[in-house]
């Protein structure tokens, strides 16, 4: 897969960091997460102009032409700043799926609009089982004239309520395939799901004879879905690692300034030892996420195992860091006004998206030959 030179990659990460430091402050996150759409269209445009939304898209289709390593670094910043928006849905899953499928017509129509941010796309894979596996697909496709019709249900569709275009995994008579559905198609009903993580948007989608366009698949359609999911796993790992590191930073800063019993609480070993353990978690998550990104970019022999490792290690690390950080803060972090719970909610959400840590642990053992 595509990769930029190291210097270029770090410079790009720095640009993203500066944009988000300015535009995705805690106050902005709190304002945005209460908007119905859950993202700020003007920031979305800025991210598109910077080349973040089209990061993975070929330059021929108006994208940046970067790959998993750049994606992972950008997502570290996205996680640290708790960015609200359909980046994972449109820029990663949908763009990744379209590139993996290789349907030239769909690419030409959709990728440039995804890259410039003018269209939001998302991918519907699992039904209400929430497994993101072929068995989890709960939409069926039947041929109707020279087109197709979809029936069934998809759930946990990220930013489904904001999407202009859906890419839907469905079981056709000849096997699993991916279909393109436009918002507003007849028989399509999108319901926004209330989410525990207010910075996230999820939707449930019902299909009742919805007309759909079947996309050509260069390899198998599920292989293409897996490729898109691999990108999403690496992206999520980077988000978790970057967010975990940020939480540890502000927790340690608090432990240096919060005084009880006449001492900064960070001077107590009870707190200090928690912080030391969290540093190990945070640094291990960064290592796992970056290694997975590199393995994916290079098509390394340990690619699949590295992605599984990052998927559960980063989820576990981010969950542990946020949970422990609330405890280390004490009462202040039990308030809505304190940011710790925003990260805790994101950690709990990220740990469920695209497969649970337990799923990836089992898969990891299998990939190691067990």
């Amino acid at each position: 897969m595509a990769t930029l030179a190291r210097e270029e990659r770090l410079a790009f990460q720095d640009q993203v960091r500066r944009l988000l430091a300015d535009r995705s402050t805690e106050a902005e996150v709190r304002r945005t997460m209460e908007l119905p759409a859950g993202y700020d269209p003007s920031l979305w445009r800025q991210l598109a102009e910077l080349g973040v939304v089209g990061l993975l898209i070929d330059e021929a289709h108006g994208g940046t032409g970067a790959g998993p390593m750049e994606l992972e670094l950008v997502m570290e910043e996205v996680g640290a700043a708790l960015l609200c928006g359909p980046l994972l849905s449109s820029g990663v899953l949908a763009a990744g799926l379209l590139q993996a499928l290789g349907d030239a017509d769909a690419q030409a129509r959709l990728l440039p609009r995804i890259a410039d941010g003018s269209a939001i796309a998302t991918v519907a894979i699992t039904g209400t089982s929430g497994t993101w596996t072929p068995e989890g697909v709960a939409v069926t496709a039947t041929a109707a004239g020279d087109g197709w019709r979809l029936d069934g249900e998809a759930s946990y569709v990220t930013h489904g309520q904001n999407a202009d275009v859906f890419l839907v995994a469905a079981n056709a008579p000849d096997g699993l395939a991916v279909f393109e559905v436009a918002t507003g198609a007849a028989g399509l009903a999108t319901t926004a799901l209330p989410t525990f993580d207010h910075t996230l948007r999820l939707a449930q989608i019902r299909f009742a004879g919805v007309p759909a366009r079947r996309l050509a698949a260069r390899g198998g359609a599920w292989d293409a879905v897996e490729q898109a999911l691999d990108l999403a796993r690496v992206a999520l790992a980077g988000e978790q690692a970057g967010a975990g590191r940020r939480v540890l930073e502000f927790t340690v800063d608090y432990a240096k300034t919060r005084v009880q019993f006449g001492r900064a609480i960070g001077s107590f070993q009870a707190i200090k030892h928690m912080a030391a353990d969290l540093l190990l978690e945070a640094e291990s998550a960064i290592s796992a996420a970056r290694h997975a990104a590199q393995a994916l970019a290079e098509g390394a022999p340990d690619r699949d195992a590295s992605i599984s490792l990052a998927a559960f290690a980063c989820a576990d690390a981010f969950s542990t860091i946020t949970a422990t950080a609330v405890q280390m803060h004490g009462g202040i972090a039990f308030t809505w006004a304190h940011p710790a719970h925003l990260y805790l909610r994101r950690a709990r959400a990220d740990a469920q998206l695209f497969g649970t840590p337990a799923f990836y642990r089992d898969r990891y053992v299998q990939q190691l030959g067990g």
Partner: protein
Amino acid sequence: MADVDTSQTPDADEALAQEVRSWLAANWSGAPVDAAGHRQWLAKVVEARWAVPRWPAEWGGRGLPDGQARIIERAFAAVGAPGSGQDRTNLWANTLLAYGQPELKQKLVPRLLRGEVGMCLLYSEPGAGSDLAGLRTRAERRSDAAHGDHFVVNGQKVWTSNAATAEYGMLVARTDWDVPKHQGISFFFCPMKQPGVDVRPLRQVTNESHFNEVFLTDAIVPAANQLGDLGQGWSVLQTALAYERSLMGEQARGPRSGAAESTAEEPLIALAREAGKLGDPLIRQELARVVAYKKLNALNTARAKADLAQGTSSPIMSLGKLAMSRILHEEARLRTALLGPESLLEGPGHPRAEDANFLSLNAYFTSIGGGTDQIQRNIIGERVLGLPKEPEVDRDVPFRQVRGG
């Protein structure tokens, strides 16, 4: 000074590399077969002044800057020859050279470089483990016809490797009880072959004996063997510890190459299969968790090395020991779970049980030895994360008044 051009031009570097390579070509013929051969080789290296190139000429060095000394070390490493770079790695010789009195240096530095002097460390005590500065071995200044100016040492040291064969021990002992704990300690080269030194092997929890207890009863240390000033032993010790740590870091940076994927199957998975438990979903979760600890530590180490190569220091190195403690304890726990009641057994007929039981106990070697996990967490919290130190109640009190036990 040295007859080598020390200016750091590429030409000088190339000439130096050429010189050391041709010397090695003429003198190195593979690893010596025994200890005597090893010492003969070291003597040659010292004679040719390759052992301590950063040191001044009067101590067998060449007064070279670090970059050129590394050229010599790399040439030695390239052919697998030991003995160079001792100005970085020889704990004993470096400490003595920095703090020793002239006659002791003359007597021992060359012999130390040639590997002729057995050495041991007399630091820890039964009552001074994590809190080494709380040591209570006493050294009292005396003078008489039989021994001249000397110290009489009484106390007990523990966790001493190689004590039975050592000629000297690097000893920290208290010489002043009326000042705070760090200020009353002095540092000595204590002769080990004398009636006042009694070395007894220590039977470990694993039923092995890698360490000794050393009982010091009216042991005699010549005043000439004092390193640094009286009462300044703590700072001498810091220098010695720094050499020891850098050496441990070297070893840690050895052949174990971080991310490299081994082709052999992960031993824990093989053991789970053998035990018929690979299909157990709970065991599979535990397998993933423990194997991940190992893999993540390897990835952390690889990333720290890459950071160092890019010239940025990394906080990750300091996490390695803590990570390793967890790996060893968790791996031992999982092995025990995989074996079940088989772990009740021991002896050569039950090698899997032997392994699991040994590893369960020996994991403490890492989580207690060389600074407990708890001390390690203090160090990470304070030096890496910048958290304030715990107030120390005994820091400014005369040691005589400090509670021991």
